[in-house]
């Protein structure tokens, strides 16, 4: 799946024509100053694509081919749950996609913001003058996570390799008990607190007094906006792919707008019986891959590409993984705005990662609280909440799905596309991640 994306990446120059079209439409409304700084290289997003985010169970690949092989200097991929056999999945995907085997590739991991990390690493490489064009992306195969033998069994198997005589081997084999055979699933719980993310999200929602109805409403909003975007063909970053043995998939298959009554029927998924987080107001884990081509502005122009957006300031933050696990956006937003010299009202397009409806609502409330900003963030005042008219207008992780490693690129690409479509100047991406970490990035529209 990842290699397919890389293939499509290579053919991205086809996007010129429609990019120009949107450019004309929106150029009139852009009047704000640019964030370009003297001495700092302009780094641009040239293209972003993704496979449809599929509910676990339908995986496969489709090949798209035909692209110049020397366009890229480096490849970085983000992933969360690593397959032992492809621990550097970026390298395998790159070669599988027919990129030159002379292009180095590495894999990064930072939970749900892994592909954000891949992109910002790419920005770093370009800014440092190491590279001019980097492909960054993320990939996740939730339907085929590696399941390990239990530690006892692993120990026995490893000693079996070392056993010299048949007697030793037999006695080791004889030591295997039923308990040895039970497999270990990869943990979905935080390592440091042993709490699952859904449980933490439920507590977070309760801490900020987010009601079940508020959460359900937000989830319905996400699904209906996604549906609308899909129907009006706005989700153009999606490329079709063929599931082996099944049909071609060209749409996200998790978008299911439903009524509030249906939503209200669901039982809480984590804290029973009084919790508020349900399956319907949480993002669902899917397979999926996404990729972006990032270049220095000169290189992109020299190669005849029409960039989509500038990638400007970005920050990473981290906080208490127990009680503030999912508050990354609250911490990262004011910080990145400060760096960019912008305020909340300057931003035209918001794309926040929707891990849980309750998490988004809690973040919105935290960003609107002077008390929280002063007591926990050491800031003088609150940063304020984004206007809902600008917020995740094409759906989000709640409706499109959330392949851990691939969501970041989707957010950035969506911001670029929305800036063009809606004619805005600045976009903001923010996301939370396991381990109590967070990320935010400011994106500026490319002048048309």
């Amino acid at each position: 799946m990842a290699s397919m994306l890389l293939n499509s990446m290579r053919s991205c120059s086809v996007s010129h024509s429609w990019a120009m079209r949107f450019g004309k439409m929106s150029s009139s409304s852009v009047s704000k100053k640019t964030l370009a700084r003297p001495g700092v290289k302009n780094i641009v997003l040239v293209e972003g694509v993704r496979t449809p985010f599929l509910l676990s169970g339908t995986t496969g690949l489709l090949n798209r081919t035909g692209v110049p092989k020397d366009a890229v200097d480096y490849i970085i991929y983000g992933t969360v749950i690593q397959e032992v056999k492809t621990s550097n999945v970026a390298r395998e995907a790159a070669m599988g996609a027919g990129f030159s085997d002379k292009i180095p590739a590495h894999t990064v991991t930072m939970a749900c913001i892994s592909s954000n990390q891949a992109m910002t690493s790419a920005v770093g490489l370009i800014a440092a003058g190491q590279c001019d064009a980097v492909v960054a992306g993320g990939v996740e195969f939730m339907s085929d996570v590696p399941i390990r033998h239990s530690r006892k069994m692993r120990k026995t198997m490893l000693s079996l390799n070392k056993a010299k005589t048949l007697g030793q081997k037999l006695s080791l084999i004889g030591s295997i008990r039923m308990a040895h055979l039970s497999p270990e699933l990869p943990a979905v719980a935080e390592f440091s607190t042993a709490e699952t993310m859904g449980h933490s999200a439920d507590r977070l929602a309760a801490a900020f007094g987010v009601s079940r109805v508020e959460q359900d409403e937000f989830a319905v909003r996400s699904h209906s906006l996604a549906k609308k975007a899909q129907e009006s063909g706005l989700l153009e970053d999606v490329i079709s792919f063929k599931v082996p043995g099944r049909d071609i998939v060209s749409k996200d298959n998790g978008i299911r707008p439903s009524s509030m009554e249906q939503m209200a029927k669901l039982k809480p998924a984590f804290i029973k019986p009084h919790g508020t987080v349900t399956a319907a107001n949480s993002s669902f884990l899917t397979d999926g891959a996404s990729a972006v081509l990032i270049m220095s502005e000169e290189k992109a122009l020299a190669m005849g590409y029409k960039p989509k957006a500038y990638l400007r300031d970005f920050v990473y933050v981290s906080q208490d993984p127990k009680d503030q696990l999912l508050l990354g956006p609250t911490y990262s937003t004011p910080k990145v705005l400060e760096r960019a010299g912008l305020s909340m009202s300057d931003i035209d397009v918001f794309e926040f990662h929707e891990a849980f409806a309750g998490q988004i609502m809690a973040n919105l409330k935290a960003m609107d609280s002077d008390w929280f900003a002063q007591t926990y963030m050491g800031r003088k005042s609150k940063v304020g909440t984004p206007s809902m008219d600008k917020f995740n207008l094409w759906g989000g992780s709640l409706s499109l799905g959330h392949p851990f490693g691939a969501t970041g690129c989707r957010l950035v690409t969506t911001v670029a596309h929305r800036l063009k479509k809606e004619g805005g100047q600045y976009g903001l991406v923010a996301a939370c991640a396991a381990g109590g970490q967070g990320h935010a990035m400011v994106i500026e529209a490319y002048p048309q």
Partner: protein
Amino acid sequence: FAIVKGDVAVIRMNDPNSKVNTLSVQMQKEMIEVMGEVWADNAVNSAVLISSKPGCFIAGADINMIQACKDAEEVAKLSQEGQKMFEQVEKSPKPIVAAINGSCLGGGLEFAIACQYRVATKSKKTVLGTPEVMLGLLPGAGGTQRLPKMVGLPSAFDMMLTGRNIRADKAKKMGLVDHLVDPLGPGLKSPEERTIDYLEEIAIECARGIANKKIPLRKEKGRMQKIQDYIMSFELVRNQIYKTVHGKVMKQSKGLYPAPLKIIECVKTGVEQGPTAGYLAESQNFGQLAKTTESAALIGLYHGQVACKKNRFGTPEKEVKTLAILGAGLMGAGIAQVTVDKGVHTILKDTALAGLARGEQQVYKGLNDKTKKKSITSFQRDSILSNLTGQLDYKGFEKADMVIEAVFEDINIKHAVLKEVEAVVSPQCIFATNTSALPIKEIAAVSKRPEKVIGMHYFSPVDKMQLLEIITTDKTSKDTTASAVAVGLKQGKVIIVVGDGPGFYTTRCLAPMLAEAVRVLQEGVDPKKLDALTTNFGFPVGAATLADEVGIDVAAHVAEDLGKAFGSRFGGGNVDVLKTMVDLGFKGRKSGKGCYVYQPGSKVKEVNPEIGDILEKFKMAANPAVSSDSDVQYRLVSRFVNEAVLCLQEGILNNPLEGDIGAVFGLGFPPSHGGPFRFVDSFGADKLVEKMRRFEAVYGNQFTPCQLLLDHAKNSSKKFHK
């Protein structure tokens, strides 16, 4: 007091005069009024009972209220009023939900179990329990009657006889709590406030659910529960349980504590003869127990413990953030163990790699045992350990706010270490010395900054023994003392602050008693018999075993040093008995042989056969006039007590309360007597002096009562404790 939210009344308890809520006469009165309002209000279908105090539901009954009663009848009446009120709660036509966050103890738990439903937070501060037995009392407001019905006989006995705290998740498993709520992190309010609000919201939902019959009150019993109930329906089985529990209590308490036996009696009466008889037995026995000397002693210790958990020297100017410990032996590593998990950066320094490795392993093992007991996670263990630095040099000592040395007890080594440390640390750094007998003045003699030198006497094993004896010299500054006390409190210690002198307070009291114990052995009493005599008096550990635990070499060392300092008053047994034992390698438990033989894995300890020969060599003739079992007991105890009183007379001790706490928590003085000073008060100074005079006639000045004791003997109205 009560706020009505829709059809649910919320009763919020908040005692304005105290940090915790207690069941007092005033509170009981108000509660009855509020309950009356709830029952009378037709719009209300159910109620929630919650505390507005973070970390406390109800901490128990007001002890002062019980102590203020003149006689047993008055206390029994108090108990009856409590019973009556909770009976009304139990029979309430409108369901009452107890929403528990923080300590729910004693009367608080009895209140909660009288309610129809209990919701508790999973916070670490939420504990449920019936600690009355530790104060020599019993749960006197229906607890002995309701608890067995609720959690079954075995669990009820376990709770009431041990008085231990039960955490919320365990309480849920036992059936003590019906519903759990997660504590919340920060939101738009502080975590504590928000958690209470959240608990209230959930409890209101539950109350509404019960009133609407959506939440059933009787839970479906599990198969194990049914089997247990079936077995318990046989009188024979129940009698067997009473017998076993009774036997256990007798074995552990030696019959010195009346409360556990009364608890068994109350439960038995309730189960076998019905609630009327049960409640009557409970209130009567509660009244009687409240007026026993044992209860007074235990309550005294409780008050003392609370007082010794406060810093009477004020807040130190500078908080200790980095603590360095010299010597990674049993003591040093033990101190590290109780420090590192309090978020203090701890440096553990030794001179040899092997010693350091052993010490670090001890700290790791202590934490790992906690992980096994699931009181901390393995992640927390590792993150705590990251605060510990093990090293062989003085690197980083310039950042230390306090250095505690726990090197070998030798004045020359202590001097060398003190000079080395003062050369590398900042001028603000405090130098604390952990010694059991060396005078601090002498150690401080070589210091450039004697105002920064203080003694911190820990007791082994440090992680188990609650006491810390802090020793100040006349040069020690007040801020240094405040800082040492603050560190000790952080380590979770009960602290007494005493003046300087050979043996300070604790060692000085113990030494004459051990000297007497050696004499008793020389007079032909078997170590096992000696142990039995002391434990029967109420000491948790027998005198011979205690000597083995302390170490025969340490005991010999101390006996010799203090003998030199105090002369013949510290005589009695021949120090050479101990010295000969040390020469033969009988150093106590650590060397495998002492008074007893210690074999790893074996639980039965046998008397060391070779000790007989030594005692034979030093045999003394026993004087039958002062050698009855009781006389031997009082010979041991009176020397201890006399020395303690002398410490107060000489100003080593600041007050009798600290003397009692030090003796009980550091040396195992019988808790049933509440410490040497309370013992004098309750036993009678005159009677004690009379006994001592009799012993004095035989043995001489070792039994001469000190002046303060004589003063008390002359005037019976003089008491150490009011």
